[in-house]
């Protein structure tokens, strides 16, 4: 197989970063990205893109930590380079505050982010309803810039992008040798994964350029994340809700909660309301599955179900998926040479 043809389905942060990893690990591959949506219309575009990991209940912690570390290291290097502003990657410092002291005061990722420590009494005075807090510096991936930067790198590597709705992965078997499924919430329909469920998130994006620090409530529901041009105010975690329409009552509630953490937000301007469905699962599915019909096989590498933590682990899972693609290619080359004998 001279030039394996790989189709990556999905053009959010998972699809694009996985496609990029494949071009890096398998330069002889011909990679195409197929998606019904591209930036700025993906779920990733709604997310703030903060590198603060979500804990998956059924993925071993060491694996999650490895994914996060690889992602942080990769983005850290970009943030420190001349490409940082184009890629939308920047460092941001801030606080995570808790109304009651969490069971785990040191999360698994505390030694990956920069300068992690408990907040001082003086710092906590600013949050009278909160009793405990953590201060650290982490990275933020602003979208659309980050996705557009990934697309640019992909095009430079010869990757083709197609706007196309894939109704069934099998439809790709005649055109492609390997399919990579990075469809996020789309996998619910596309591969019938009933373990995948939406967790609806509504956010507000406002112009408040004096906000330089992030503030996050440890309950994950209220957060203020300053991006390059806009500050993302959040949010909600509505399990099982499929609605993509903004809700006005929710908007007021999010705004009020954020203003109670940061009163100066009363002066924020130009509010945009966005909704995304976090493609959630007990564990991220990074796994090979070989589809077969009538003696014809189609290897599929799944990489979906990142829920609230997509940005935090994207490069790590992309690396793992690219590795699985490499194994599929070896298997195909092995079987094709056997076929020749």
């Amino acid at each position, binding site marked *: 197989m001279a030039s394996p043809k790989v189709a990556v389905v999905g053009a959010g942060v998972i699809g694009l970063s996985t496609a990029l990893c494949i071009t890096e690990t398998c330069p002889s591959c011909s990679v195409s990205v197929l998606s019904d949506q591209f930036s700025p219309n993906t779920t990733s575009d709604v997310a703030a893109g903060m590198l603060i990991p979500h804990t998956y209940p059924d993925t071993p912690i060491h694996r999650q930590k490895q994914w996060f570390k690889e992602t942080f290291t990769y983005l850290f290097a970009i*943030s*420190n*380079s*001349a*490409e*940082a*502003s*184009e890629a*939308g990657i*920047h*460092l*941001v*410092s*801030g606080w995570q505050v808790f109304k009651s002291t969490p069971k785990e005061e040191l999360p698994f990722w505390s030694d990956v982010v*920069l*300068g992690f*420590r408990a*907040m*001082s009494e*003086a*710092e906590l005075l*600013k949050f009278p309803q909160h009793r405990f807090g953590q*201060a650290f*510096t982490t990275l933020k991936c*602003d979208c659309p810039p980050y996705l557009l930067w990934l697309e640019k790198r992909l095009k430079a590597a010869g990757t083709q992008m197609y706007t196309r709705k894939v109704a069934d992965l099998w439809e790709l078997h005649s055109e492609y040798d390997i399919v990579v499924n990075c469809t996020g919430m789309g996998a619910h329909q596309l591969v019938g994964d009933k373990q995948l469920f939406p967790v609806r998130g509504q956010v507000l994006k406002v112009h408040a*350029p*004096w*906000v*330089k*620090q992030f503030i996050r409530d440890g309950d994950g529901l209220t957060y203020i994340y*300053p991006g*390059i*041009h806009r500050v993302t105010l959040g949010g909600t975690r509505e399990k099982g809700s499929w609605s993509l329409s903004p809700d006005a009552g929710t908007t007021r509630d999010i705004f009020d909660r954020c203003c109670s953490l940061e*009163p*100066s937000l*009363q*002066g924020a301007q130009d509010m945009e309301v966005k909704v995304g469905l976090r493609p959630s699962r007990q564990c991220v599915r990074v796994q090979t599955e070989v589809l077969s019909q009538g003696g014809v096989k189609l290897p599929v590498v799944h990489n979906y179900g990142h829920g609230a933590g997509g940005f935090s682990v994207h490069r790590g899972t992309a690396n793992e998926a690219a590795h699985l693609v490499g194994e599929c290619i070896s298997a195909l080359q092995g079987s094709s040479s056997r076929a020749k004998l």
Partner: protein
Amino acid sequence: MRVAIIGAGVIGLSSALCVHEQFHGLVPSLELEVYADRFTPHTTSDGAAGLWQPYLSDHGNLQETLWNKETFDYLLGHMHSAASKEMGLFLISGYNLFTEPVPDPSWKNIVLGFRNLTPKELELFPGYSYGWFNTALMLEGRSYLPWLTNSIGILEAASEHFWLWKNLGFDFIPVISNAELVFCSDFLPFTSQVLAPWVKHFIITHSLNSGIYNSPYVIPGSEFTVLGGIYQHGNWSEENSAKDHKSIWDSCCQLLPALQKAKIVGEWSGLRPARPSVRLERESIRLGNLQGEVIHNYGHGGFGITIHWGCAMAAARLFGNILQEKKQLATPPGPRL
């Protein structure tokens, strides 16, 4: 009672506000008038980036450290209110970088979360082997000065020269805060203003040979990011020099490579009114038949915003002393606000 404040930068206006807050209820006839050759947005305070940070060492001047602390605490107290945006006040974290270990500064317990940099953080800044991280405040003059002005509704008038006080027929208490009274030699700082909204931290490098602010620094404001680091000795000219701008640019880009893509939107240079220490004291002045009490409040160098409120309160206390001496007050002024 007419009181003149000479100088409409952060020192003049905050002194005015402090005197107004403490005494307008006690002295109904109090009229404050501000005289200056420049008002916002053309004062030195308007050009400053606005970062609260004292110099590295207080040289044993505990009084100045106390005024710095009073200022920080006062500003931090305003952070809970929605007025902070109008004041141009916001929290900001950042880095101070050194090429060798240095003692902790006098202000380490005033700012929030002061700590040394970790090795991983130092990887961001090749050439620097030691540093601090802390959370401080920004107070932007372009917003703060109008806010101060609105807070007291003071009368303003332009003046050509600070000697006008002898012609004005004031009762007895001008408060002087004009930088031009400083006869010490000064440094001429240049800054570039760029659009780099992805920069969320201040970064201040220190070269212990060159002295304060003579080494690149990057300070992100609410509208643009200030790049600086040139500090020329004894130069009273305010002309910008193209060569100095390029040099700031190159050294800041070395510090933050992404700045290469930043768009330059302006430049500014101004005179920091430097002095070995702040002059904050009374002086009785006699000129012919005219006698006046003067409260000096000047010489705040590159830390005017940092120290302003502590000094304003000290100036207000001196004012109160004068009023008491002149029996303008039945009882001494209450505890300082």
